[in-house]
């Protein structure tokens, strides 16, 4: 090995090497943090909502005119929907999970408005809600039709029963098993009492990126305000057909209302995560572009520095260097430059990661990102240098005496 001389010769031609090392450091800093952001977004996007998303869709009915009676209309609509072949179940619901819009509230275990409350999403739906959403009930039981409360703008009547998610149980009742919290009561803002009758495994809040995540509660209520939203679950594979049919049926049922905003849950999810998917796509392009530019820089420097030293290479060959030894020389030279870049890059990567964590509410990057990124860049560097180095190795020894 000729580590010493290669290194000393490199120090005498710092500028090119330094620029490439800086480029490598910059590339490493950006790509590692970008890959981390991509992975983090993908992880967030991949979290299950708890719903049977591929077979769900929702639709909104808005009544107008003084004669419009939502209470009757909704009951008729739902009865009809539930009887329709191809539909598994349907419910009224105030907010669509994952959609980005809904209600939240704060609940307490003691009736004291000054004590801290626990935030939770609140879904208002009927006794068919659990089955429609296909939630996994892990303790207790579902509501019954008699638990249902209709709330009017004039005189609200709050439901007194709730099904909560496991995540909400964990935040409220430190270390208690879901089965042990059945019958416990929670205090709503204003002092209303709600008793926990069941626990479901998982149901995301309407804002999947919020702090609430899976803290949700379901209550058997329907606001009577001329505005009804139905969530409908179909038999597997029937969704698209049923969407067309349901829209037609609802439209045909009366002239005193509009039917709108029909959307499959999968579309709702795609819309909610549109910015995130766009971001990850952009970051992927950035990462790929930077790697390509990085490769071109390395190839460019290698070609330039090899062409400049053609006669030296010929002389080395004349003095007894074999082709593999010339190849090794230039790969080692590239390795030194890359290692210098990667060392600086590691510092910058961690610095940027700290900035992102502290300023943009990002989680901390796992320790292995930096060494893996460094390894990748060293590999990319060696691969980039391989072509030019192989060409250098092919230099004829006669160059030593031929060119001046």
């Amino acid at each position, binding site marked *: 090995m*000729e580590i*010493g*001389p290669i290194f*000393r*010769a490199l120090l*005498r*031609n710092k500028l090119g090497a330094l620029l490439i090392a800086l480029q490598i450091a910059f590339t490493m800093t950006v790509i590692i943090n970008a890959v981390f952001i991509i992975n983090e977004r993908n992880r967030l996007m991949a979290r299950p909502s708890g719903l049977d998303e591929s077979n769900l869709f929702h639709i909104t009915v808005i009544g107008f005119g003084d004669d419009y009676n939502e209470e009757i209309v909704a009951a008729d609509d739902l009865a009809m929907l539930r009887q329709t072949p191809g539909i598994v179940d349907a419910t009224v619901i105030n907010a669509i999970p994952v959609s980005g819009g809904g209600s939240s509230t704060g609940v307490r275990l003691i009736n004291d408005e000054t004590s801290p409350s626990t935030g939770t999403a609140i879904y208002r739906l009927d006794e068919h809600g659990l089955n429609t959403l296909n939630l996994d009930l892990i303790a207790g039981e579902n509501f019954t039709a008699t638990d249902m409360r209709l709330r009017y703008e004039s005189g609200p009547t709050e439901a007194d029963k709730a099904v909560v998610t496991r995540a909400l149980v964990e935040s409220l009742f430190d270390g208690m098993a879901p089965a042990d919290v059945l019958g416990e009561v929670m205090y709503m803002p204003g002092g209303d009492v709600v008793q926990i009758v069941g626990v479901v495994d998982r149901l995301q809040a309407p804002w999947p990126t919020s702090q609430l995540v899976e803290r949700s509660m379901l209550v058997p209520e329907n606001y009577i305000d001329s505005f009804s939203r139905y969530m409908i679950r179909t038999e597997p594979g029937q969704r698209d057909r049923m969407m067309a049919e349901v829209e037609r049926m609802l439209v045909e049922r009366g002239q005193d209302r509009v039917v709108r905003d029909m959307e499959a849950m999968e579309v709702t999810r795609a819309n909610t995560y549109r910015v995130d998917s766009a971001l990850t796509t952009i970051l992927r392009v950035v990462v790929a572009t930077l790697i390509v530019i990085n490769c071109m820089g390395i190839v460019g420097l290698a070609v330039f520095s090899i062409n400049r030293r053609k*006669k*030296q290479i010929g*002389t*080395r*060959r*004349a*003095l*007894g*260097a*074999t*082709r*593999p*030894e010339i190849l090794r020389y230039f790969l080692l030279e590239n390795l030194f430059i890359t290692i210098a870049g990667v060392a600086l890059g590691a510092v910058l990567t961690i610095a940027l990661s700290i900035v992102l964590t502290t300023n943009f509410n990002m989680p901390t990057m796992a320790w292995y990102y930096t060494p893996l990124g460094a390894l990748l860049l060293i590999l990319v560097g060696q691969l980039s240098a391989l072509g030019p180095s192989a060409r250098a190795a092919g230099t*004829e*020894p*006669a160059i*030593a*005496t*031929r060119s*001046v």
Partner: protein
Amino acid sequence: MLEMIDICKVYRTDLVQTHALRDFSLSVQEGEFVTITGPSGCGKTTFLNIAGLLETYTSGSYQLDGVEVSQLNDFKRARLRNEKIGFIFQSFNLMPDLNLFDNVDVPLRYRGLKASERKPLIEKALESVGLAGRMKHLPSQLSGGQQQRVAIARALVGSPRFLLADEPTGNLDSNTARGVMELLQEINELGTTIVMVTHDQELARESRRNIHILDGQIHEENGRGEMSSSASAVA
């Protein structure tokens, strides 16, 4: 030591064929100092490159130290160059980015010696050319004559049996050239076979054997050394 029989070298380009060497036969014995002269383009460097295994030849036979070299692959030729041949070039061909020590070290690096084995060899070689005190200098900090001495130290450091020099004094003024020539003569007296291409008729005349090439063929051979030895044999 060196035995060439009917060597031909043809350079082919798209337009022309150049017969750089034609039926070139030459035998050099161990310990000889042979100078090669001839007009520019007559084939001196071509001969030297073939002799030094830097180039292959088109036809003929060449044995170096009893080994037929046409059969050797690139790897073996490189190894043979490293072990048996020292090169001295007209423009010195030092590595500008390496100090004198590292420059002289270059051929030893390809020989797989340990640092502790190489160091005394390098120091001795630099000492023998009078530059032991400048090991940390860069070539650019030396005069032309000094640079050529470094190149000679580099050629000698691996103790090759055979030294090939292509116009080693071509870039030097006549005084410096003389010094380099004397150094080569000393080296030859210590037993190293030298073949040297030169433009300088005066230097050529000093050698024991001079070969004049014209148009790729040996035109004339002056064997002063041969003659004196045969004369002494007669006497």
